[in-house]
């Protein structure tokens, strides 16, 4: 966010510019007379508020071995957002800490299989796929990379999350379904959703900057209706590269989780999608989707001329972010691929924000500083440490977590008390207008951070504003259906779990789904 201040306090300090120079300050910002920056006065002499950048530091102690996150409740707006982005980065670094073979720590964290007691026949660990769930949440579509392979997804949690499940006796289907609706996740729990690409047949040097591992993936087959069926109990070992990781964690006072998302980059000085270092998918840089074309169906120009992991160069925007109908996917069972088929994915909201295409300075500066941290610590890092080749896309959380309540969609719409205004139409319109203008920086926003945050590798097809444009559109405290989405978004599918505060994490509903399907 931009921290806003009036120009008045600046004036007594203007004479200190020389002092500042004498102290050796070097202005990192280029002088720029372009009108995008706020001036001290407008042409008619009216004072204009100035927007100050929020510079977010990395921490020296994060490398080489990242320490646990300190738990405290950061202040809400107008205080800066840095602590939330830093928490996501620190948890990312902890989870992706490499072992001697370069495998990320989270690969060995607790999972649904290890936390819950299943009544289904399951192959023992080591003989069962720990990656899979190739159908994405929301629409259950399947993304196909440029090599004709689907992506594989993994879900893991930290030990604090697993301890919480155990301590509350939530390890069985009946216990989960009967969990106290008011029970909430305490501070310190973290869950991870990872997106992996099958690179078994790819040249090693092409993936030199990626976190890699050998992963057990489910054997795919075609069902009677043409659907893709996954068999986790008949896994195949493939060599995998980490494309993206959701890092979802709680702070004190934030039981709704802070939803951070990371994706692969070619490395520093990547500070935003516009730097063109992020190679999972391109970004449509010119504008956010508009009200009259929310899904960019009228945009016929290519998002990029270049190929990306999930995008074929030259694909027009209105032909991208479209899934192949499942029955039309031509699975080659021998190679476990879809020869000749691919989906092209691009990022619809360049900065993952509803009101601007410019990345937030807090996150841009933090990404920059983490990049510099890796450079400065290069001498003490393992050659297998690829953590520096990932960047935080953004994070979203509740700026006003007091509105984290049962049966709440957690959105900036009429369901928010700050928008509905008790039914006062004029106030409602004003609140909505302010949200349109200022996004999550609006005083009427219950959210903070990137309110249009999606992972191109995990929420590839649901980025549009009418679908699931931020994490909370799926992850809230309402009932959850078999599609893994809130019941108010899915009137057709059966309900898996009634409304609970714990529903904000879909690990519980995923376990219920696996047990009941």
């Amino acid at each position, binding site marked *: 966010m931009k921290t806003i201040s009036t120009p008045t306090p600046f004036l007594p*300090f203007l004479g200190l*510019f020389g*002092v500042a120079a004498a*102290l050796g300050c070097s202005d*990192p910002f280029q002088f720029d007379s372009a009108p995008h920056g706020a001036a001290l006065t407008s042409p008619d002499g009216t004072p204009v508020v100035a927007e*100050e950048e929020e510079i977010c530091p990395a921490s020296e102690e994060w490398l080489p071995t990242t320490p646990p996150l300190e738990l405290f409740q950061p202040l809400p707006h107008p205080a800066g957002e840095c602590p939330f982005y830093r928490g996501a980065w620190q948890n990312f670094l902890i989870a992706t800490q490499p072992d001697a073979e370069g495998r990320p720590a989270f690969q060995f964290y607790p999972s649904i299989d290890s936390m819950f007691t299943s009544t289904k026949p399951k192959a023992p660990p080591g003989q069962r796929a720990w990656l899979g769930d190739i159908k994405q949440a929301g629409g259950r579509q399947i993304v196909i990379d440029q090599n004709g392979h689907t992506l594989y997804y993994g879900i893991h949690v930290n030990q604090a999350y697993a301890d919480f499940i155990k301590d509350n006796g939530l390890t069985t289907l009946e216990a989960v379904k009967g969990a106290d609706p008011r029970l909430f996740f305490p501070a*310190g729990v973290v869950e991870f959703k990872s997106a992996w690409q099958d690179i078994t047949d790819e040249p090693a040097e092409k993936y030199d900057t990626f976190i890699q591992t050998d992963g057990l993936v489910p054997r795919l087959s075609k069902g009677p209706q043409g659907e893709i069926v996954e068999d986790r109990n008949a896994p195949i070992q493939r060599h995998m590269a980490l494309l993206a990781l959701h890092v979802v964690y709680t702070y004190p006072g934030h039981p709704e989780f802070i939803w951070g998302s990371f994706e692969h980059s070619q490395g520093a000085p990547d500070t935003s999608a516009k*730097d063109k270092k992020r190679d999972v998918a391109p970004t449509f840089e010119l504008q956010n989707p508009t009200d009259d074309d929310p899904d960019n169906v009228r945009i016929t120009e290519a998002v990029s001329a270049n190929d990306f992991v999930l995008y074929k160069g030259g694909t027009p925007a209105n032909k991208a972010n479209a899934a192949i109908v499942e029955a039309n996917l031509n699975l080659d069972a021998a190679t476990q691929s879809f020869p000749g088929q691919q989906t092209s994915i691009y990022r619809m909201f360049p900065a993952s924000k509803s009101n601007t295409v410019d990345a937030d300075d807090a996150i841009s500066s933090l990404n920059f500083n983490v990049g510099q941290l890796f450079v400065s610590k290069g001498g003490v890092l393992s050659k297998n440490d690829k953590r520096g080749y990932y960047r935080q896309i953004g994070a979203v959380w509740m700026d006003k977590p007091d509105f*984290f309540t049962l049966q709440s969609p957690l959105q900036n719409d009429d369901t928010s008390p700050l928008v509905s205004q008790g039914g006062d139409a004029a106030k409602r319109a004003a609140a909505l207008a302010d949200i349109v203008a200022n996004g999550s920086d609006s005083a009427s926003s219950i959210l903070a951070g990137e309110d249009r945050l999606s992972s191109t590798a995990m929420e590839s097809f649901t980025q549009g504003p009418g679908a699931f444009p931020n994490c909370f559109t799926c992850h809230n405290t309402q009932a959850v259906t078999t599609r893994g989405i809130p019941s108010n978004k899915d009137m057709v599918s059966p309900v898996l779990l009634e409304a609970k505060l714990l529903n904000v994490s879909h690990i519980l509903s995923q376990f219920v789904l696996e047990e009941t399907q």
Partner: protein
Amino acid sequence: MNARSIAFLLSCAASAGCYLTLDKNELDSKAAGDRRADAGASQGDAGGPSEGPRFTTSLDTPAIELADGTTTRDPCVATTEQARDILTAYCAGCHAPPGTAGGFSSILDFPTLITLRSSTVKDSTGEFARLVIPGQPDKSRLYLRARNDEMPPVRPPTEPQLPRPTISSVSLLRTWIQRCLGNYDAPAASPGGTSPGGATPSSL
């Protein structure tokens, strides 16, 4: 000159140093310069922004901001301040002087608070339940009553209902009890609803 430049210069002046800059001994300045040059070249190759990185390196762990504008390095200082605010907002009206509802008025006197026991409810060991047990929120009567939406209690229909702490607030209280109350000495077990140190047993 834009507002960003002004803000930066002011921060330099106000702090007698550039808070954005932390080259110190951490970065090899030559290497950093080389990298910036490389960065500009690679960005140019990629058709990206022509200017290089506009941030200077900062690797200082920032202090935690407190609501009063000060900062701290101790997360428990921040958490305790926030817990005190929550307890003041939701509990102190009845359980801090002059209030003595439930037989106690020490909701904001933390050393005393951790010595108090309920005079009506026993824990799983048969002892009268302690209101707060440092490190054990799930065994702390105060926490459980807040979490279970039991406090403040329902008032007669003729009186306005008192607001209850939000889930966010209860979450913070949990962390406070779990991690930040350990600095006070835990009392020895005390039978029969009396509390050590002569504190009044509570009917909470």
